[in-house]
């Protein structure tokens, strides 16, 4: 059971730290991170294992939105991407 966290917005110090910190608090294991900064525009995709997570996906999204602030954050179950983009 894995989920995808995406974070998009203006680059600043500590985004990755805050996101991974929030994941750690929820006991979500980070499996993979891809991130890039293009012209001050920050984009990150993080794959997490939610097997032992202590909260639901919507609560994790709320916590992330609260902790990181001013970024567009989505937390979605990976199945939606698998079903849309893989035959």
């Amino acid at each position, binding site marked *: 059971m894995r989920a995808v966290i995406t974070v998009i917005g203006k680059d600043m110090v500590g985004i990755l730290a805050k996101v991974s910190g929030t994941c750690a608090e929820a006991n979500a294991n980070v499996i993979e991170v891809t991130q890039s900064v293009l012209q001050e525009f920050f*984009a990150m*995709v993080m794959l997490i294992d939610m097997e032992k997570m202590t909260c639901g996906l919507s609560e994790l999204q709320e916590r992330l939105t609260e902790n990181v602030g001013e970024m567009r954050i989505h937390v979605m179950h990976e199945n939606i991407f698998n079903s*849309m983009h893989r035959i």
Partner: protein
Amino acid sequence: MLNMSDIMETITMIQDENLDIRTITMGISLLDCCDGDISRSCEKVYAKIYSRAKDLVKAGEGIERKYGIPIINKRISVTPIAMLAGASGGDPMMYARALERVASDVGVNFIGGFSALVHKGFSPGDRELLGSIPEALAETERVCASVNVGTTKSGINMDAVAIMGRAVKEAARLTASRQCIGAAKLVVFCNAPEDNPFMAGAFHGPGEPDCVINVGVSGPGVVRAALGKAGKDKDLTEVAEIIKKTAFKITRMGQMVGSEASAMLGAPFGIVDISLAPTPAIGDSVAHILEEIGLERCGGHGTTAALALLNDAVKKGGVMASSSVGGLSGAFIPVSEDAGMIAAAQSGALCVEKLEAMTAVCSVGLDMVVVPGDTHEDVIAAIIADEAAIGMINGKTTAVRLIPAIGKKVGDMLEFGGLLGSGPVMGLNTSSPSVMVGRGGRIPAPIQSLKN
């Protein structure tokens, strides 16, 4: 690992291009609720729907949170009530009230199935139900009615067509103080599908299982954006390819949500309806897709050809993406629910005659078309007959959902608000069809060979 650009594509579709699941509709058979006593029958109807659908809204919201995909409507369709009315006798209004009460208690915004299938004639209960439709739609908020007046195999029941002409007018008249909303909840079909999840025409056909989950997807905005990104220099073969690929992705999402909902609710998964269903939101318009293909204005010459291409490509892409496609499946062209259609109708580029031609190549028919309030009921019946004839001859579903705007004239606007949008009153050819409509009888089923 998932590809980053795929992930961003999905998120852009949902966030910026209005991709959503339009409806999860639970179909429930009420055949085992029949009782000789109408009060007991109504009690059984309430109890069965409540027990089956009490978790429907909760399950839908759970899926929304898990996948981050909006599910706009959770709805219920039931066995055509005329069948129950036939068994129990009594006033069909009692069923309408029971349906309204249970819909409100389980928290769905519409319940479909105040319906009758009368394409070949009337059986007991059918006439009573047809007669009670205007009152039922006026008295209830959530109940939707539909009537099947024709099929390719049995022809068109013109007696029923005449009755429905009057019912449409009466439904609008009884709700004149509420934007004539009654008529917006009434659909007259030819070749009605039994597994359609979309309101107002949803009902649970007698050939369906006891309880089933059907899903309707949406996504005109996604298709338009994909065509916009491709640019104007692609030829139409490539345009069709782009639409197919986009429809595939949209439908896969519907398939996943349907399977998930069916597992959560313990009901088998029925079908994905792969219709492109527009909303009045900016950028969520089927008319704008046609304009993106290359028309100055939807409704001009070329519209029928562009719509034919769109409709066919959506089906081809969607069919491969789902284990079971059904319902209406195609492009919807409801005037009041589509920003591009509204603009085209207001500018005079789109007229009812062109809409009628468009219905020959897309799913459904004259949908959410606002007509002058003083339109004669026989003219409405004749419009229904014309649409039914297109469906009957071409072996496809057609439907009519006209709203006579009581007290308004051509060019005025009728504002429904929400997903139903707003529609300009469109002009009609008012020469009288009364003698033909008054003849009644049946238009015989068409020959199935010598196709020209």
